[in-house]
């Protein structure tokens, strides 16, 4: 059951990602990205991370992607033309990607035993467990991350206000 769901949503995630690249209209690409984000949320849920799954839906699928769609609608972006791309990209890109893939695969297979394993389903990381780890053991990194986000917000405000 868990495995079947994992396969279904994993394939959905990959399909959405491929569709994101192949679509010519920005809004269709944005919608495929929403599918990717939402199926990732289901994968988190299968791994027992319920809070993370819902945070993924609320923050990524719900808030960030709405802003993407909003901007596409506001700019009324049209269809993009399909270009052939440069020769250099074909010559260097395809072997490069294949080499990277080969390196990653070989590393993964050699280090397979030391990764540990994650089981599908059967257990649950409750919100209480998560917050206990987050606010006791990892309090400093958490606060540093929040300051980083605050700085980013201030930067966005300054950049947006410059035009006037």
């Amino acid at each position, binding site marked *: 059951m868990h495995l079947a769901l994992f396969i279904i949503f994993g394939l959905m995630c990959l399909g959405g990602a491929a569709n994101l690249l192949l679509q010519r209209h920005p809004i269709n690409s944005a919608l495929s990205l929403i599918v990717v984000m939402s199926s990732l949320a289901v994968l988190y849920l299968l791994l027992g991370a319920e809070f993370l799954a819902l945070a993924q*839906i609320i923050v990524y699928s*719900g808030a960030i992607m*709405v802003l993407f769609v*909003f901007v596409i*609608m506001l700019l009324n972006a049209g269809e993009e033309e399909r270009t052939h791309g440069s020769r250099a990209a074909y010559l260097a890109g395809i072997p490069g990607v294949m080499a990277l893939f080969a390196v990653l695969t070989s590393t993964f297979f050699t280090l397979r035993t030391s990764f540990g394993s994650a089981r599908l389903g059967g257990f649950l990381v409750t919100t*209480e467990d998560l917050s206990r780890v987050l606010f006791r053991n990892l309090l400093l990194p958490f606060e540093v991350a929040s300051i980083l986000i605050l700085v980013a917000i201030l930067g966005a405000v300054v950049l947006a206000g410059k035009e006037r």
Partner: protein
Amino acid sequence: MNVLVFILLSLLKVAVVTVIFLTAVAYTVLLERKLVGRIQNRWGPSRVGPFGLLQPLADGIKLFLKEDLMPDEVARPLFILAPIIALSCALISIGVIPFGENIRWHGVDMFQIADLNIGLLVILGVTSIGVYGIALSGWSSNNKYSLLGSLRSTAQMISYELALGLSVIGVVLRTGSLRLRDIVNVQNTHGILSWNIFGGLQLIAFFIYLTAAFAETNRTPFDLPEAESELTAGYHTEYSSMKFAMFFMAEYANMINVGCVATLLFLGGWSSPFGNLLPALGGPVMQALLPVFWFVAKVFCFLFLYVWVRGTLPRFRYDQLMGFGWKFLLPLAIANVMVSSLALAFRG
């Protein structure tokens, strides 16, 4: 526990809840027309059936039999998908809402479809996905009124979602859980005195939730997405027949959902306002159904408030709407979170 019995009972439960919910949606429309009629000193619908009680049925048949028009230049798949997203998101939320005490029959919870640890977050998540229905409908219609309506609606929903999310934090802090049943169980010790709105000192949070919920459901005084004097009908201008009906149903279903969530979070859910002052009347069946009665009564009061506000308040201007959301509600919600958490930390 027999698996087959469990599946059958669960399916039955889903069917019953969906039918009751859709009927409630239809009759909320009638309630609104009747009440707004009385507020404006006229009768409202009164011809179909006694007191116009069969009007929703007549409306449904009319919408079902209308011709389904589709303009030429629309983005077809999205045009069809948009009302489906809107309605299905509105219908999913009811699945996690508990209506009464946790009474089990053959191991199946009688008054809730799914009891989730993170029920509150699921409702927030589904609401945030529901925005796409409106955004896509306006974009795919290829009509400037629709596009402006959906842009307004999307911007408004993003802005007020923040205040909505922050307003429920005080309640979650008091409960220490995101499970909706736990949230109600904290509130049912001393009747009305232990409801979150009074006993939990969340009166300000309730005000914030109420305002943000009106904006989230695109209702007066925040119904700018369908301001008919400027935008004809807003995002559903190009829709007809059942596709229009789906948007219409989604709007009213969202009203009921918001009423249910407000009842659970602030008004004590299914708990009686008199606490244990009322003697336990009747048999076990009566005792099981009485909480459901309180729940429905509270949701009804909330819907009445919705219609009352619509009959009373004028529409906001768009800059007023944004200013109110960002400069007043959001800081107030943050202050409420800080004061609530300080009070809770001080007390225990």
